[in-house]
């Protein structure tokens, strides 16, 4: 069907493509050189052309909604700190025919094999340098060539297991590698998210469009990682630098998707030459790490001594063959731009064949002939640091384009080449192909590059049928347009044949087994515990502030002692309502809650995360607007409803795994402590009139109290309901019962030894409350109880969370 588009809906498609004019001299993904639509695009374009603007906007919004709901974000660093940026999806995917893709994949596979051999040589015999294929100086000056790893043989037999390649299409239509990503390539998870969103945008086209599915690639790699354990019962972990890294969302997402533990270096410990993760149940062996952290930060003992992210002894464990690192430490050496100048020759020398997939033409200026060539062709050169691992279009002030420096106040490029030639490379300024993007309702050509992923499995390298496309912001087809921003898009590899729908789940083999959820790292447990505490602390603060503002509205600021008493009480907790009706301290509680959740994104449902983010955002929003009195009280009611929504999600929907228990325990400890503080402040002999009511109100027990004690109410009735009643979910007794029960479950019966410190303290406190009468719960007793709770918290931390 050469001309399918014109046959079926000629007018609509023609109209739709009317304004689409690729710049001259570049390849275009959508249109052939003769201006006709490429057949592989026809179904998608027909669909888009047939849509009215409103229908299209609704479809695009479905994709955006998906991204919003799942909370996909990217951390972007700017001059003043970093911000989480919304995901810039370009809704129209890049469509590539399966046959063409197969050819690209062949080139990728060859290149992956080649890189493996280069790395094995650089960390082994060094023959490439000895035989003159690679200058010694370039290797020795490469900051990612990690000398402590020289001579270390990877346990798996391979250095490289997961790679990415930045490819672009040159004007003659052939593919070109712009950069090899070998250190810790990101983007595969984002590619998956782009697919989810785009398939929602085109939910009526996608199922029938024969688009190759991505799940099979991930399943293959997951199985490969599990296989690298070499049959042991140890675990596979994903090693992340933590939540402050730009791609942390992806690390958490991939960990959840593949079912691996997300680990930070401080979760890990090297003991007796082997690697283990600190979990709430003790140290558990880990033998495979998918590393998303740059090599040199991995071990402060043998690598970068200033690294705060590393695990001391990691290199030693690798040397001892106690673990497989994906990719092996030191793999960043292959990313240096200068290597691309030598790879074509190395390929021929090592394999006897040329590169199937060429890379961007590169000249190392440390050689006189090459330097002269760069000098004589300045106009079409990008000149930059030889050891830089940045992609050609990620230019900065240290790069010259066409003989001009990008930064100011630099000497002439010619001087620069002569003086520092051995630290510089020239790379041909490439022109990229364009692909359609919807810009203000019109289809427009935009330059693009695609990140392609390759994974090593037991059967060899596999290439993900699809990828992570980046789309330039303007129509300028030079590689320059790719820097700073732009959009991302899905890549559809479409086949003539129907494709098989795949999911991550492998075909069941053997009888069904219920798998217990994975071990919980102590750091994750600690964050969940404090998430529980902070949310509860926030809720309690909101209740007290509402009580204050209601009374302020009713009595005015200084008319009754109770209002002053309340204000003083709140100030004691950092919640002084005088300067701001919605005090900064309260916002800090919400931010701290969100901060804890951010560190355990892999263990947290998307709905829960969204609810928490919404809560924090609402609080910040209300802070600027709420007026003292009734207005602020109403704002507090809004926040309380949202907190209840979050708690409902957590407690109704969250699986009762270990992490949930720590969250629940944190909440119970905090609720007990807050209640003890409230009772001490509002049931004392000298509390101003109306104090009992405040206690009952903050304890959310107004109805129960009224119903039960309608005739007589006094201190004893309040204490009975809020401290001693085992059935009131706000009472002290209820929290301690809950703590007793949940703490006991942290260690399942077969492993359960004698009562630990935390269990003992909980039991003591709970027993004391169980036998107490209201008159015994004095201010002093409540203060003692708060000290007990602090000791319980410390004991829990020592026993499980550190």
């Amino acid at each position, binding site marked *: 069907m050469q001309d399918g588009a014109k046959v079926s809906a000629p007018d609509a498609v023609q109209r739709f493509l009317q304004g689409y004019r690729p710049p001259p001299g570049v390849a275009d993904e959508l249109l052939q050189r003769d201006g006709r639509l490429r057949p592989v695009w026809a179904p998608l374009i027909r669909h888009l052309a047939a849509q009215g603007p409103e229908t299209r906007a609704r479809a695009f919004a479905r994709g955006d909604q998906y991204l919003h709901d799942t909370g996909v974000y990217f951390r972007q660093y700017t001059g003043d700190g970093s911000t989480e940026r919304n995901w810039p999806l370009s809704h129209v995917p890049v469509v590539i025919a399966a046959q063409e893709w197969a050819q690209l994949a062949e080139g990728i596979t060859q290149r992956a094999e080649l890189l493996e051999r280069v790395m094995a040589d*650089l960390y082994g015999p*060094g023959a490439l*340098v*000895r*035989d*003159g294929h690679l*200058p*010694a*100086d370039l*290797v*020795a*000056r490469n900051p990612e060539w990690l*000398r*402590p790893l*020289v*001579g270390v043989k990877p346990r798996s037999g391979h250095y490289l297991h997961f790679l990415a390649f930045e490819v672009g299409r040159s004007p003659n239509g052939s593919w070109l590698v712009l950069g090899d990503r070998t250190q810790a390539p990101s983007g595969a998870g984002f590619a998956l998210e782009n697919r989810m969103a785009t398939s929602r945008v085109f939910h009526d086209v996608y199922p029938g469009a024969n688009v190759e599915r991505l799940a099979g690639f991930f399943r293959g790699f997951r199985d490969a990682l599990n296989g690298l354990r070499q049959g042991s019962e140890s675990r596979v972990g994903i090693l992340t630098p933590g939540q402050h890294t730009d791609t942390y969302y992806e690390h958490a997402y991939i960990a959840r998707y593949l079912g691996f533990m997300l680990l930070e270096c401080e979760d890990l*410990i*090297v*003991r*007796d*030459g082997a690697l283990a993760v600190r979990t709430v149940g003790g140290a558990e062996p880990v033998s495979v790490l998918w590393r998303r952290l740059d090599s040199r930060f991995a071990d*402060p*003992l*043998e690598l*970068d*001594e200033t690294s705060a992210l590393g695990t*001391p*002894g990691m290199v*030693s464990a690798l*040397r*001892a063959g106690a673990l497989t690192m994906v990719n092996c430490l030191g793999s960043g050496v292959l990313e240096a731009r200068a290597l691309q100048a030598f790879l074509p020759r190395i390929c021929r020398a090592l394999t006897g064949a040329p590169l199937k997939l060429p890379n961007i033409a590169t000249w190392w200026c440390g050689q006189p002939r090459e330097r002269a060539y760069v000098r004589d062709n300045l106009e079409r050169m990008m000149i930059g640091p030889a050891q830089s691992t940045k992609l050609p279009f990620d230019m900065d002030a240290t790069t010259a384009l066409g003989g001009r420096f990008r930064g100011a106040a630099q000497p002439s490029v010619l001087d620069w080449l002569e003086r520092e030639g051995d630290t510089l490379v020239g790379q041909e300024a490439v022109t990229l192909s364009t692909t359609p993007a919807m810009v203000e309702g019109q289809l427009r050509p935009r330059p693009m590059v695609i990140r392609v992923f390759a994974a090593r499995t037991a059967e060899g390298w596999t290439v993900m049928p699809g990828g992570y496309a980046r789309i330039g912001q303007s129509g300028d087809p030079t590689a320059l347009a790719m820097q700073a921003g732009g959009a991302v898009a899905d890549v559809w590899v479409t086949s003539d044949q129907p494709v098989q729908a795949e999911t991550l789940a492998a075909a069941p083999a053997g009888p069904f087994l219920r798998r217990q959820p994975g071990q919980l790292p102590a750091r994750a447990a600690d964050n969940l515990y404090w998430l529980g505490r902070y949310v509860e602390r926030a809720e309690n603060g909101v209740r007290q502030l509402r009580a204050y503002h209601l009374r302020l509205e009713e009595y005015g600021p200084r008319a009754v002692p109770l209002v002053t008493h309340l204000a003083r009480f709140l100030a004691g907790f950092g919640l002084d309502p005088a300067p701001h009706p919605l005090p900064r301290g309260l916002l800090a509680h919400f931010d701290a809650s969100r901060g804890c959740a951010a560190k355990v994104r892999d263990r947290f449902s998307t709905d829960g995360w969204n609810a928490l983010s919404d809560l924090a955002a609402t609080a910040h929003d209300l802070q600027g607007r709420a007026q003292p009195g009734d207005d602020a009280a109403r704002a507090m009611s809004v926040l309380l409803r949202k907190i209840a929504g979050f708690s409902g999600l957590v407690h109704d929907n969250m699986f009762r795994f270990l992490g949930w228990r720590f969250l629940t325990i944190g909440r119970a400890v905090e609720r007990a402590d807050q209640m003890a503080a409230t009772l001490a402040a509002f049931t004392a002999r000298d509390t101003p009139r109306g104090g009992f009511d405040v206690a009952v109100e903050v304890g959310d027990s107004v109805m129960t109290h009224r119903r039960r004690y309608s005739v007589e109410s006094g201190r004893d009735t309040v204490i009975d309901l809020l401290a001693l009643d085992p059935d009131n979910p706000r009472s002290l007794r209820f929290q301690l019962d809950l703590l007793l029960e949940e703490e006991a479950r942290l260690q399942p019966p077969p492993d359960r030894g004698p009562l630990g410190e935390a269990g003992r303290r909980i039991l003591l406190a709970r027993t004391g409350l169980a036998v107490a009468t209201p008159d015994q719960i004095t201010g002093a007793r409540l203060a003692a109880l708060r000290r007990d709770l602090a000791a319980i918290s410390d004991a829990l931390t020592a026993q499980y969370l550190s």
Partner: protein
Amino acid sequence: MPQDYDITLKISYLYDSPAAASRTLLRMLPRTEPGQQLLAGVVTADPAPGWRRDDTDFFGNATTEIAHEARLTRIVFRFDGRVRRALDSGALDLSCGLPALAQQVAALRDIGAASPHHFLGASPRIPADPAIAAFARACVGPDMSAQAAVQAVSRALHGHFTFDPTATDVATPPAQAFRARRGVCQDMAQVMICALRALGIPAGYVSGFLRTLPPKGRPRLEGADAMHAWVRAWCGADAGWIGIDPTNDMAAGGDHITVAFGRDYADVAPIRGALRSAGRHRTTHQVDVIPV
């Protein structure tokens, strides 16, 4: 006639609050290499570690990796042993001229441990510095041999610096010490390495010992009461590596005993460790090098 030395190195840490479980990498065992032989020697820690592995690093330095499970309030690392050192040979200047040096380095297709290529570029603790580079260029003439250039830089730096143990610490960057014109052997060695690299002379960092008491009639050298640091420079294929001690402005000869050699202090630090403690700690450091 070679000279034998009995050597003790003792480094202790005292912690105000117990330090958590720790892992430490020691480079305290002297090298065996041309002109120097380790006759006997042992590296120990007290309390004894729960785990230990002895190995050799990229540059051929002996390493001892140890781990302690228990919390420690005090730990002592020591080396005890005997080293045989060849006396100065009164070396002839076999080095080539500076322009030829670059060609000789470039002709070496080698990234093994002894290759000068490792010692030309910036290293973690010795980044290039324009002020030091300018100082270096002012020290040398166009017709100098590489060895003469090394000696000229040593002499100039010796004059530039005042020995002052209070001016810097182990983490002071060379550029800062150079500006302050004060420091100890580590600072002078690192500044000199930076200077030589700027001239295109491959240069590395040596940690080691000096004999404690000088032979009769010679002055006591600076740096004899603790671990010392000096410089090795590659002066061409014929001359190879030569040792030079800018702190005392002298060739590193029979009184200098090499422990470890690398690109800068990070490669040779006698102790690299993860002893983390909330409180403060005190370190003491004691060296005895007795001729026998």
